[in-house]
């Protein structure tokens, strides 16, 4: 028993030490990582929160941030996008994470602007990750799916693995004659919203239910709680397929999705590319780096089913310490060290150089006011 305990601890410490030294050596002293706030000058406890998709990345960043500001303890509460926006507007959080950008459908954008003293609220894409179509099918190692086929599987139209539509996408695969076990999120989820948003835009009529955060019963399939629930259910189930944040797919098979005439695998690079080909939301301010993802893109090497989660912040804060903290923390996330940590620990696709520069320009203007 003694050895097994040691076996459990040692890699843990090693991994931690590695992670810490990795980001420590990269950035110490560089202007990028500190946001112009002197290293080690801040202290205190800060609680931020929001979308649970960002939890892994935010946890990593809060640990990595102690390299720059050792006396600051950041806690990220994974209470969901809605809760994050609510607490940001009410002033509970200085920074919040949200899977959806602010809109004025329910007056949230106006409320947020008001919370920021009438100035344009800052929205930066902080977590970009492909939503992988994970599968566990007897005798199938590689799977290609056109958007229409994918929609058919998840809407319950296609029920057998050896269906013609799937066979057409995969001429070489030996598909079993077995029922498809389609696994979906049973809880309310930004992943579901992004996934269905993609299907609605990409295939039109074949996906009639539209965009939703909670899966409707009429589409059937197995329900599972949370991303980990879907992953576990696909792994333990038979001939199962599901959608989940690619970073948590583990060793499960992931399907390539039809883009134009090609099939693209869900890599972080392919996911990050979609922000480059997508237009900014119409009428958004300079502080809002928000995008209407172009799901119908035919651009080669772009993975379209992508989850973009935003950080919400204000351009001005009433307290000097608050402004300094937000500036330092968001700068750290945008720094090379932060981006690398997010990518290693949470599978978040690093922002392209162009976008990173834009974001940094916005963050540099955070002041006290």
């Amino acid at each position, binding site marked *: 028993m003694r050895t097994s305990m040691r076996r459990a601890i040692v890699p843990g410490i090693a991994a931690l030490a590695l992670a810490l030294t990795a980001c420590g050596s990269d950035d110490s002293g560089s202007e990028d990582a500190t946001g112009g706030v002197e290293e080690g000058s801040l202290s205190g406890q800060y609680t931020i929160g929001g979308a649970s998709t960002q939890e892994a990345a935010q946890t990593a960043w809060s640990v990595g941030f102690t390299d720059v500001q050792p006396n600051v303890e950041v806690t990220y509460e994974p209470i969901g996008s*809605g809760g994050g*926006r609510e607490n940001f507007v009410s002033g509970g959080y200085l920074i919040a994470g949200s899977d959806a950008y602010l809109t004025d459908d329910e007056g949230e954008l106006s409320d947020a602007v008001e919370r920021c003293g009438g100035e344009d609220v800052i929205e930066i894409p902080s977590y970009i990750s492909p939503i992988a179509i994970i599968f566990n099918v007897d005798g199938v190692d590689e799977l290609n799916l056109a958007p229409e086929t994918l929609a058919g599987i998840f809407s319950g139209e296609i029920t057998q693995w050896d269906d013609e539509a799937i066979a057409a996408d995969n001429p070489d695969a030996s598909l079993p004659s077995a029922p498809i076990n389609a696994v979906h999120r049973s809880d309310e989820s930004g992943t579901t919203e992004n996934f269905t948003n993609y299907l609605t835009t990409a295939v039109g009529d074949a996906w009639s239910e539209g965009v939703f955060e909670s899966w409707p019963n009429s589409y*059937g399939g197995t*329900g599972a709680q949370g991303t980990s629930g879907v992953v576990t*259910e696909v792994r333990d189930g038979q001939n199962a397929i599901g959608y989940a944040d690619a970073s948590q797919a583990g060793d499960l098979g992931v399907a390539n999705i039809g883009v134009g005439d090609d099939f693209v695998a869900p890599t972080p690079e392919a996911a990050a590319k979609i922000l480059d080909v997508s237009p900014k939301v119409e009428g958004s301010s300079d502080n809002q780096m928000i995008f209407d993802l172009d799901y119908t893109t035919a651009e080669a090497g772009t993975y379209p089913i992508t989850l973009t989660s935003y950080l919400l912040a204000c351009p001005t804060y009433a307290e000097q310490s608050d402004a300094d903290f937000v500036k330092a923390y968001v700068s750290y996330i945008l720094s090379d060290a932060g981006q690398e940590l997010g990518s290693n620990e949470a599978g978040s696709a690093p922002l392209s150089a162009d976008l990173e520069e834009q974001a940094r320009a916005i963050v540099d203007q955070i002041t006290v006011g």
Partner: protein
Amino acid sequence: MSTSTEAEPQEQAAERTPRRRGDAVFSGAALGAGVLIMLALAGVAIFLVVESVPALSASGDQAYGADNIVVYIWPLLYGTILAAIIALLIATPLAVGVALVISHYAPRKIARFLGYVIDLLAAVPSVVYGLWGRETLQGWVFPIYQWLHDNLGFLPFFKGPVTTGRTILTAGLVLAVMVLPIITALCREVFAQTPVMHQEAALALGATRWEMIRMAVFPYSRSGVVSSVMLGLGRALGETMAVALVLSASGVITINLISSQNPSTIAANIALNYANASGTKANVLIAGGLVLFVVTFAVNFLGRWLATRGQVKE
């Protein structure tokens, strides 16, 4: 304590007033504690009602995509009741048997120990049962479900398709384990209260032990057993974490016990969604909690009423 009772009488005459004040304070405190409990229970009801009111008008996105609150809660209530009924169907015969072992079959000395062991079942926290059901039990029952589906698939309960071990039947099994000690403890008391004269008379007339139990113990304790089952039902309805961890729910209404689509329960649904609930959604969940409160209240009320009625009849 004996010293104080001896010391009292000397002071008795002199200290009349302070003594009365002491009595008044103490009885006041006792009454206060009772009132506090009533207030707490009233508080539970009132807060739930107040926080549920905004949910009445919720619909669409605010009610998790359901048209209105009734459409949202009804399938959950169905799942809650289904899981509890499965649990009771499994647990009741077992509990009656175990209670008989302790009250009539096992030698007296061992019986007491066996009672403690069964109580240990109740001591395991529900979240541990949940973890066990999620990680271990689901793997054990999966092949059994496949067998049930292959051999009894013509029954609507086992129609399948069997894709997961985390079904409503598994949730019912875990719940059965959890309510078993409760029903056992209550049944045990009821059986032990059977008049010894009746039992000895039956044995003296040449009845076997089973005949004695059937003719002297069961008729006497019928209402007690029913009431203990009702109280077990109350517990099964409200159990949260075990179901939340075990079940892969999609919130459908079905009597198919081993399929990929399972009904969820009110309590588990609250636990799983509360962390992410904002705005009216929180009220929708609380409204579900209110429904659960009312149902368990009714079940417990019925159980207690049967218990007291049984006592009066004797």
